[in-house]
């Protein structure tokens, strides 16, 4: 039972399904503006049952349409068979599971289908993505980084402690002048990079396993951060009173002006106009592009894969393992530092427990995104998917008010299943 289909026909499937979705979206949107469907009886209001679904359908439709139009029409035929179908299922099992879950959430609480919810999920995923991109370097060389979460806390505490308003009653440094906003940020990230260098030094110089080296650093960082946090007059009080210009780095929104809101008033189901795009999203995108470039287009990136794939071969090929490992841990810690600063800015405060356990979330996201713990395998695209999957599922479960204990169970199951599928894939190859 198999059927051969040529590339161009296959692409046509994409075009057709994309077109159908786009048209369905437009029709639904048109229907929702009609008075007869607005539900004068209030018993059935189309907007309250589909929300921004038409917009999502249209966006997915356009995406599929473009995919069909852009794809090459030459090449091997596509074979539809039971075996290939099975392969497709295992390759995309987590994505499919997520899709099913999203559909269930949308049915249980249609409010999930809103553009502002989608943007909110992206906002929450952004700092996590930055962390995951950092930690992926250490995973690519078959290592790990347990100090990542504590570095986030360190950067958050340092930056917030130096960027409080002059009038705040309980300032960390009572006599500190209002310095340029970038200075404490650079200091905070610099402190993280210093500890990153320590990680790299321990691993590269003494050939220490990254698990142990970063465990040691993790404890040192937390202790140092706690000592700093406990200094007089702060004495372990949560840091607040953060300056508005610093807060803006984490809370600012683009395209959220009144005029845009008024112009787009009727575009979205809640009637409040476009909610704006959080600054965190473009920051994460820029970092993604940079990291993609570093991994794929630079000698350093090639070296990372080489060291992770076969360390001995890399040494023989004349790659300086010491320099590259130092580079890896310093670059990773720089990204954790950025994530920490953004976290402090976004929550307008910090305490020394910030970032606790984040490294495990980041590792889990990487692994679900196809990064191998054996090193040498992993792509930026996969990491983005991994982070998004976790962000969507976590947000969705919270949205349905599922108990946090169940959320943890589900998270654990996802990690186990994802890695199990991944490993079977490699074994088959």
């Amino acid at each position: 039972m198999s059927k051969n289909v040529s590339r161009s026909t296959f692409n046509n499937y994409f075009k057709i399904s994309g077109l159908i979705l786009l048209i369905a979206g437009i029709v639904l949107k048109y229907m929702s503006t009609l008075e007869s469907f607005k539900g004068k009886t209030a018993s059935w209001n189309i907007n309250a049952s589909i929300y921004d679904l038409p917009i999502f359908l249209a966006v997915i439709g356009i995406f599929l349409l473009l995919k069909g139009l852009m794809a090459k029409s030459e090449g091997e035929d596509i074979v539809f068979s039971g075996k290939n179908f099975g392969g497709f299922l295992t390759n995309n099992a987590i994505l499919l599971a997520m899709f099913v879950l999203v559909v269930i959430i949308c049915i249980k609480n249609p409010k999930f289908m809103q553009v502002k919810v989608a943007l909110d999920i992206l906002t929450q995923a952004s700092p996590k993505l930055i962390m995951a991109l950092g930690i992926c370097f250490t995973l690519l060389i078959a290592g790990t980084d347990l100090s990542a979460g504590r570095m986030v806390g360190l950067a958050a505490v340092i930056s917030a402690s130096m960027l409080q308003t002059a009038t705040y009653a309980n300032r960390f440094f009572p006599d500190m002048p209002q310095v340029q906003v970038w200075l404490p940020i650079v200091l905070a990230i610099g402190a993280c990079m210093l500890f990153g260098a320590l990680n790299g030094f321990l691993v590269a110089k003494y050939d220490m396993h990254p698990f142990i080296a970063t465990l040691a650093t993790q404890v040192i960082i937390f202790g140092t951060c706690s000592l700093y946090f406990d200094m007089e007059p702060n004495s372990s009080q949560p840091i607040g009173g953060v300056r508005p210009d610093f807060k803006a780095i984490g809370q600012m929104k683009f395209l959220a002006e009144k005029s845009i809101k008024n112009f787009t008033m009727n575009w979205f189901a809640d009637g409040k106009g476009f909610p704006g795009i959080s600054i965190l999203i473009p920051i994460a995108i820029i970092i993604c592009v940079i990291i993609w470039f570093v991994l794929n287009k630079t000698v350093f990136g090639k070296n990372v894969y080489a060291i992770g794939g076969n360390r001995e071969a890399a040494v023989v090929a004349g790659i300086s393992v010491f320099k590259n490992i130092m580079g890896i841990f310093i670059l990773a810690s720089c990204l954790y530092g950025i994530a920490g600063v953004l976290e402090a800015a976004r929550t307008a405060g910090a305490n020394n427990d910030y970032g606790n356990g984040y490294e495990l979330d980041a590792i889990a996201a990487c692994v679900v995104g196809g990064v191998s713990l054996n090193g040498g395998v992993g792509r930026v695209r996969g990491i983005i998917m991994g982070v998004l999957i976790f962000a969507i599922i976590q947000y969705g479960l919270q949205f349905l008010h599922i108990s946090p204990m169940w959320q943890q169970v589900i998270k654990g199951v996802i990690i186990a299943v994802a890695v199990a599928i991944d490993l079977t894939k490699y074994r088959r190859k």
Partner: protein
Amino acid sequence: MRKYFFVAVLLFSVMFTGISDAGELKIGSCIYTFNDAFMTRYRNAMADEAKKAGVELQIMDSQNSQSLQDEQVDELIEAGLNVLILNPVDRMEAGNLIEKAKAANIPVVFINRQPVAEVLSNYDRAFYVGSLAEESGRFSGEIIVDYFKAHPEADKDHNGKIEFIMLKGENGHQDMIARSKYSVEAIEKSGIFKPVELGSALANWDKFMAMTIMNAFIMSIGTDEIEAVIANNDEMALGAVEALKANDFNTGDPEKFIPVVGVDGNPAAIEAMKNHEIIGTVLQDAETCGSVAVKLAVALAQNKTPDKNITGYELIDGRYFWIPYKKKTEGE
């Protein structure tokens, strides 16, 4: 290397003789962790009171480990201290600590984490200084009720019900249970409003987590429905405020305001209250607690009967000194 070791040994011996040679009355204390904002205020208050009373106070950091604390208590008893002030890591393990003190016939004052009543009654020189967690819950409920009395428009649908979100602390924590329960009960007991829980979640006392969760509540329930936010501590209250602010609420526009209440009275929360971002918080009086604990310890070491003359508070059930919480609202 050997030289440094020798110097270190010398330094240590000087430190220890320093302890055993000093003043007459010595208090030994273990705090469950130095890494806790409230307990830091608490131990600073203890140190101040000890200075005032002219007694020596040695405070140890138990680093959130009960087994480490057990060892520290042994060390303190060995060192010949006259009285102990203990903040157990695990309140259920306090029996062990009492046995140690009893064997050495040293009086012991437990603080902040309350041992089980039967365990405390095993030793006639064991006491407890703390605050009633249910009181903090009751006060935060009362702050909400007072606010709704003063601002009838806060009941958006005018149905006499307060539809609230509850942000809870760590799962199973004594304070989390009591604060969640009694804040709701206080609203119910007001007889004016009925509490209706729209949603509740465990946010582990954490600001960032509370912010994330509150955001999800705002998206899934909507700001039109939510009439109040009750948080088990200030950090979570402030996290909720950040989520509200991101949705243009609680930024100064009285039309767009959802009352939020916390517990702890930490400086950031007091500041937020002044900026009209939260309506109030409940202050646990670390300063009074710390000073009462030291006063009580000194009296016990001198074999005086602990009573109101010494601590300023009534002795309840022969074992307990309850230090009241304080409401902090914009008016007060």
